[in-house]
Structures are given as structure tokens and as C-alpha cells.
């Protein structure tokens, strides 16, 4: 199964997502990248992340994304 990091690399291969704690603030993900990320996470992990959870703070770091997925019952 793809990892969160692998999905992020698929969207923005030019960045190393292990070195940042603020993907949005560091300019690594824009708002449309977040939409793409949500779509990929939904498909990969078999969930539907609710629209009200599609907020920048939930996608700032791998830890934040992991916490969000855990909320939907994904075991990582």
C-alpha cells in the first residue's frame, strides 16, 4: 500500500516532505494540491474525508495527515 509520503511525492515530486512541518506555509502544497491529496487519500485508504475536514491545518505535515486518517478509522 502507498504511504502518505508516497502519495505526497506523487503530487509534488520535487519536494522532500520529510523535512517540513508546514507543507502549506512552505509552499509545497497549494489549495488545489490539497484537493488532489484528499482524492488520493480517499482512494488509497478507502475513506471519504468530509469536506469540513478539508482545512489547511489537517494537511500541514505527515503527522497531521496521519491524525486525520486515524479519525476515519485508518490504521497506519
Amino acid at each position, binding site marked *: 500500500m502507498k504511504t502518505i509520503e508516497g502519495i505526497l511525492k506523487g*503530487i*509534488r515530486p520535487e519536494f522532500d516532505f520529510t523535512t517540513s512541518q508546514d507543507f502549506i506555509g512552505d*509552499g509545497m502544497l*497549494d*489549495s*488545489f*494540491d*490539497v*484537493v*488532489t491529496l*484528499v*482524492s488520493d487519500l480517499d482512494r488509497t485508504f478507502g475513506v*471519504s474525508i*468530509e*469536506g*469540513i475536514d*478539508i*482545512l*489547511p491545518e489537517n494537511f500541514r505535515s505527515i503527522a497531521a495527515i496521519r491524525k486525520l486518517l486515524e479519525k476515519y478509522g485508518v490504521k497506519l
Partner: protein
Amino acid sequence: MNLQFRNRKISGLLTIVPANERSFVDEMANFNFPVARSMKLKEVMGFDRHRIVEGPVCSSDLAVHGFEHLFRTRRLGREDFDALILVTQSPDYFMPPTSSIVQGRLGLKNDLFCMDINQGCAGFIIGLIQGFLLLDQPSVKKVVVVNVDVLSRKVSTKDRNSYPLIGDAASIAVLERSDDPTPIHVNVKMDGTRAEALIIPAGGFRTPPTPETAVLEEDAEGNLRGKDHLRMDGSAVFNFVQVEVPPMINSLLETAGTTADQVDAFLFHQPNRFMLQKLADKMKVPQAKMPNNIVEHFGNSSGVTIPLAITFNLRDKLLAASIRACLAGFGVGLTWSSMLLRLGPLEFCEMIEFGKGPTRAEVS
């Protein structure tokens, strides 16, 4: 705010789309983004084709084209209606109202109540509310509600946030009284404190247009647009829709004493496919009941996406029978509104194209 109407119906619906079709793939080079990222976005958001006007085509041009079609095909007579409500954010002029322009160009009677409403994505429902209210007057037999926008003329071609999804279109809905006393339930809310989430900053009296307001500026995401162009805070609008719309629909259904599974179709404004899918998931509505194919075929034409969803997806069904429909519009203002009504059978439910031959009239 909850509203309720009885003995009112939409009796006919026409939509008008420009014949000029552009594709996202052809336009990708305009955007300041790698092709791979744009293609990914195309898949998620449903960007594919959109219909936009060519040259100096104005809102009244699309509306007049639609009316002439209805008159020519005898679906509507020139003397049949007593009010013309025109909902647009892209008027021909600041003054006079575009409804007056349409009245004049068509040579309609003077005994006609004309009114413009400045509304966008919620504008179909706002127009229906005004139309249903006017039908309280005995002298008003039919009301025509026109929704029209040519906002592609106000979107930067180098703005990947907005240009791929923008569409131009018009609709003409005929409203009249009905024998059916089944309540039509409506819910409307507005929040002007968030008005800047969707705005054309310059061009009005607050910030008149100047050479400076036309200069393209690059935003943090690499989009290029001027202050004369439409600006959408996509994240704020997305969040607004996901937070406000599901409880609004729940409230509407509760007021009507019904449930989502008793509704045949959820005909919502269509900003993009992703947003609609998320709304359907949240509301636990099967996606088959909530069409989300308008942006990929025509683009987002603000208030016209709901009537387009009807004429494009439900034409044959609505000519023969009626359905219980839940409409919802949300956007500029910010405004969010919904309506639960019985829709159909319609006397006409049709889509036509605009753009074959000159139709623009000069007003002096």
C-alpha cells in the same frame, strides 16, 4: 430564513449555452503550472470542456436569443408574462438594468414589471422566490425569471483557480400559478461579512477601473489576475459550502417533514465535481441522485448550473412526469439557499446554443 409557497410552479425551462466550446487540455499552456499537476486536477475537479462567449457578447444577447427562440417556437407568447426578473452579476451596463435592455430589444409591452437582481450561484432560487412572490398579484399571470452570466469576460485566462471552470450561460424559467397546494419550502441565508471570498475588486464605484487595476499580479499559487478580474478564495468558498450547505438541507427537509430518501433528485449548484461529491458523501445521498456533470460539459455558469442540470439530465423525464426535487445554490454574497418543490411535468425543457450569426444590438 424559511419561506413557504403554495400553488406555484415552474411550467417551462429553457437554457442557452454559447456554441463556442473550449477544452481544458487546449488551455493548460495558459496556466503557470506543470502539465502533470494540471492533468491531475482535471481528473479530480472534472475540468474538461466549457462554453464561453466569444467577443463582446453580453448577458442581454443570450437572454434575447432565448426569448426569440421561445417566441418563434410558440412556447411563450410576447404578451403572456407580466414580470421579467433578470438575475446576473454581469449586467450589460451599470445603468440601465439589463432587464430593461431585454424588454426594449424584444419590443415587449410597457405593462411589464422588469427587475434586475445582482446574485450569482444562489441566483436561480433567489429569482424563483421573487417570481413566486409576484404571483401573489392578481394582475400577474406569469413571471419569467432569467438567469444569465457572461463572467468569462471577467476571469483572467491565466488564473487556474477560476478560468478552467468558468462557463457562460443563460436560463429562462416560466413561473405561474398551480392547482397543487403542496407546499414549496425554501431556506435562504446570507453572510456579507464573507463577501470578499468571491469578488471582482475593481470596476465599481469603490475602486474604479484604471490601467493599474488591469495589471496582472501573481498570487502565492502562481495564478495571474488583475483587480479587474474575478477573484475566488477557493479554500474559503469550499469550506463555506461544506459547513453551511448540509445543515441547510437537513433543516429544509425537517421543515418539510420529509427525508432525503424521499427526494428524487438533488439539483445543486455545480462549482466543480469534487465539491459535489463531498456534499453527496456528507449528506449520504447517492451520487446518482445528485448530478455533478455540468462543469465537465459546460463549466460553472453561476446561477445557471441548476437549470442546466435540469435541462441536460432530466429533460425527457420532466416533460412526461414530475419529481420531488431539492434545489440548492451557494456562492457570492455569501449566499446559500435551498428549495424543495415538485418539478414537472414541464411544458418545455430544452437547451439551445447561442453564437450562430450576429445577435448583438447596440443601445444608444
